[in-house]
Each structure stands twice: as C-alpha cells, then as structure tokens.
C-alpha cells in the first residue's frame, strides 16, 4: 500500500514518461487527463461519504482547476482522482505519476526541497482529540501516555518534538487512528485541528469528543506540484487567486466549514485577510 509500491510505480512511471522536457500543461493538453492525487479520509477536504461519493473542499478545488484547464486548452479535460496517503503523496508527485496533489498537505520547507507547493488554501495546526472529560487539556498532559498520529505527517513530528515523553503509536490513516482512540488503545489522537473536528463531527456521538490544546505546530495547507514546472504551479495558483477574487473560494469554504457545513470551522478575520492578501492583482 505504501512506499515500496510507490517507488516501484515511480520507476515504471519514469520509464514510460515520453520526454523529460514535457511540462504538465503540455501533458494534460496531449492526454486530456488531469491526474490528481487526493485523500479518502480527510474530512471535509477529501473523503468518501456514505453514498460512496469522493468529495470535499480539496476535491472541489481540483474540479475548479479542471474547469479552468478546459477553458485554457479549449478541449474537454477529465479529472482522474488517485488515492494518496501521507507516505505516498510526495513520491507520486516527484515522479510525476500524478500532476498535482490537493488534500490536506502542510507546506513545509523540507518538503519544498523535493517538490513544489502552491499558495495556501487553508490554515490549521496540530491539536489533540480526546474523549470528553478525559482530563487531558494540552500536549503537556500526555507525557508517558500512548498517543496516536498518522505516520509521516508533520503532526507526528511535532508531537515527538513537543512531547518527547509520549509513546507515539502510528496509524496509516485517520479512520484507523480514530478507531484506536475509540477502543482505548490510545488516550489522544493528534493531527490538524480541522481534521480532528471532522473526525468528531462524523462519529456516532460527536458530543463524546473534544479537540483540546493550543496549536503546537502551524499547518498551512497547499497543493503539491512537481519541482521545476513553474507554468503549472502558476496555473494552479492563479486558479485559487481567481476563486478568491470572485468570492467562490469563500462560498466553497462556507459550504464545507460554515455553520451548516460538514465540519463547522468558521473562518477567522485573520485568515480571511490572509487569503485576500495572497491573491495578486491580474
């Protein structure tokens, strides 16, 4: 499921890539296909709902990229979604198996050495999800306790740094981590606050859970694009800028994170200003 496979894919993909010089935009123009990686259990960014539909905020954004591609290239473009995990998303973009990954990926300078990032489409940070009334209020309270995180995430690293005395148990996706928390295998599960709110909101009894503690990492979300293809990165960036300028971004935000959204997480004034500032004039 994970890296050994992805590297095998990497070699296969690399061997069938016709020419190194072909940019992502040229490839999409040639094939009529936007191959995008995204997640399957990152609520509400990219997840599979009860009706077995693959939806979410990031999926909507990919759809907007596809629509803008059709306009630019003047031909029908199909969006082909591929599942990625935190462990596979960077190799799969680096080896160009996927053209772009939009899910719930934190932009870090370390990752930027291997792949490129677009401008940010969301802001959050590491927090803890605990059973209501557990007595755990912050990352300081989990010393010597078993705490869960998804392997390979910024949250896992932040947890190990912020609380070196925690026994970290890793999972391959949030669904498994949440199940382990529910069964008492761990006392807290760590990931970005917004994802924790999503896990709680989708659980049987949302009231049984609470997201606690200050952010102990900052996690701005961006899409991953291949290194050294600035035309393609510009294209994805400009798609987001257009959505911010014409207000569609805020409608999308409201649809997923508003009061009636899948995961209520109202946008702060600070974040709203930041998003507007990120959009450059035409």
């Amino acid at each position, binding site marked *: 499921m994970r890296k*050994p496979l992805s590297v095998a894919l990497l070699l296969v993909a*690399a061997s069938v890539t016709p020419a190194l010089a072909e940019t992502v935009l040229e490839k999409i123009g040639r094939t009529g296909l936007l191959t995008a990686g995204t997640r399957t259990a990152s609520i509400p960014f990219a997840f599979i709902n009860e009706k077995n539909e693959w939806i979410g905020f990031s999926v909507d954004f990919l759809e907007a990229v596809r629509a803008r591609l059709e306009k630019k290239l003047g031909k029908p473009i199909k969006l082909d979604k591929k599942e990625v995990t935190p*462990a596979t998303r960077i190799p799969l973009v680096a080896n160009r198996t996927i053209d772009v990954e939009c899910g719930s990926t934190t932009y870090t300078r370390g990752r930027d050495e291997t792949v490129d990032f677009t401008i940010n489409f969301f802001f959050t940070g590491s927090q803890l999800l605990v059973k209501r009334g557990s007595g755990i209020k912050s990352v300081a309270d989990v010393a010597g306790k078993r705490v869960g995180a998804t392997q*390979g995430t910024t949250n896992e690293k932040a947890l190990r740094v912020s609380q070196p005395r925690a026994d970290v*148990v890793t999972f391959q996706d949030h669904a498994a981590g949440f199940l382990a928390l529910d069964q008492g295998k761990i006392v807290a599960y760590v990931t970005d606050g917004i994802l924790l709110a999503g896990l709680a909101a989708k659980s049987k009894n949302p009231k049984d859970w609470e997201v606690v503690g200050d952010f102990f990492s900052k996690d701005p979300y961006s899409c991953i694009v291949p290194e050294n293809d600035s035309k393609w990165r510009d294209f994805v960036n400009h798609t987001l800028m257009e959505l911010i300028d014409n207000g569609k971004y805020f409608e999308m935000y409201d649809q997923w994170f508003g009061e009636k959204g899948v995961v209520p997480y109202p946008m702060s004034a600070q974040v709203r200003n930041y998003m507007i500032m990120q959009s450059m004039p035409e």
Partner: protein
Amino acid sequence: MSVSRILGLQYEFRWSVLWESPYGEWLLQGIKNTVVLSLLAWLVALVLGIALGFLRTAPWRIPRALATGYVEFFRNTPLLVQLFFWYFAVPQVLPAGPWRDALNSLNLQTPILTVNYEFLAGLGGLGVYTSARVGETIRAGIQAIPRQQTEAALSSGLSLGQAYRYVLIPVGLRIVIPPMATEFLSIFKNSSLAVTIGFAEVTFQTQQVNSYTFKGLEAVTAATLIYLAISLTIAAFMNRLERRYAIPGLIARGATRE
C-alpha cells in the same frame, strides 16, 4: 552530493541518511523488531502447525474437520485483513472492562522490546496465518511417509500418539525441510505488514527515514537490502539444516554431498 538521472528522473542521492544519527539507530531498532517478531511468530506457527499436521492426518473425524476448517480459514484470507482483525476486533470480543482496557493500552518495557498490543496482534496474526500454511506442509510430509512405516510402528507396540511422537512427526519434518525453509523466509517478509498496525519494524523505520529526510529511494533500497540479507542468512541456515537432516534415499538426491 551528485545529481543522478535514473530513467529520465532527476534525483539527488544522499546515502548517508542510512547511517547518520538518528536514522541509523532507527534502522537497527527496526531490524531487531523484525527479527524478534518473526522468530517468535515462527515459534507460534511451528507449534500450531505441528498440531495441525497431526490432527489433519489423525483418524478422528471431528478434530480433523476442525483442523481443516482452521487451515482453510486462515490460509484463504489475506494476511493484511487478518492483522486488522487481530488488532481492532479481537480485543473487542472481551467484555468491556479493565481486562480489555489493559490489553488495548498495554505498554510493557522489556529489555528486548516494548510489549504492546501492536506487537501482540502482529505476533498472533503472523503466527496463526503461517501456522495454517506450516500445518499443510507438515501434513504433506506425514502423508509422504509410506503407509507400511506407520503400520510397522503401530505393530511394534507403539500407541498412535507414540507413533506420531517418535516416527511420523520427526520423519515428516525432515522430509519437508525445503518447503519449510520457504515458509520461514515468508514470515520475515510478511512481517513487514505489521507496519499497518503501528509495529515499528524495518518497513516502518524506513518509512520514518523517508518522512524525515524525503530520501525515499535510499530508504526503500535500505529496506530491500535488509530483507535480502535476512533472507539469504536464513536460506543458508536452512540449507545446512537440510543437508544435515535429509533422509538418505528419500528426498536426499543432490542435497547430501559427502
């Protein structure tokens, strides 16, 4: 640091991530955990497998049917699914209460490794899955023994249990050393699936190295070489065992060299 081109890809190799601190220590930890988990799981598989081989060939209908059911169930479902079953479902069979909680949150430091439920689930899953396969191999070994030898054992005054204990199982095991070597090798490779239930073995640690350094090719190369080294060591060991214990005239053709 040199930029290399592999199959048209630009990639900067940095092999030192495999021994730099702390990554080198992580890999060594992973190797230790892989070896401990696999060896203990092999012990489980061998003990259960011998029992299965016995029951599958014994002349008792109901135990034989039960053993057949066990083999078909554990041999014909994916190990990955079985591991999830052991990790997430098995403890929930216990009644809710302190016992179940203690099992789920087990965290026992031993000099060799941390015994937690991730380890126990991996041990149970890997051991039981392999036991079904080992049991079939041993059954084949026992059935390869000529019927006359069983009859001779019984007519010399041995009970059925004694015939198994002193003749059928020892001889059967010696016949099936080559396929058992394959099973023994498989358990080390299959142990990599324990990463999915959070057990920190070699695959887990190489993924950690990748996620901290973004040097995925180096990390996967390390994993490949580590598994290869473990497997070749075991293959060499099993070859010696085979030469030593092969039964002359049975499958010994080519295996015994004076």
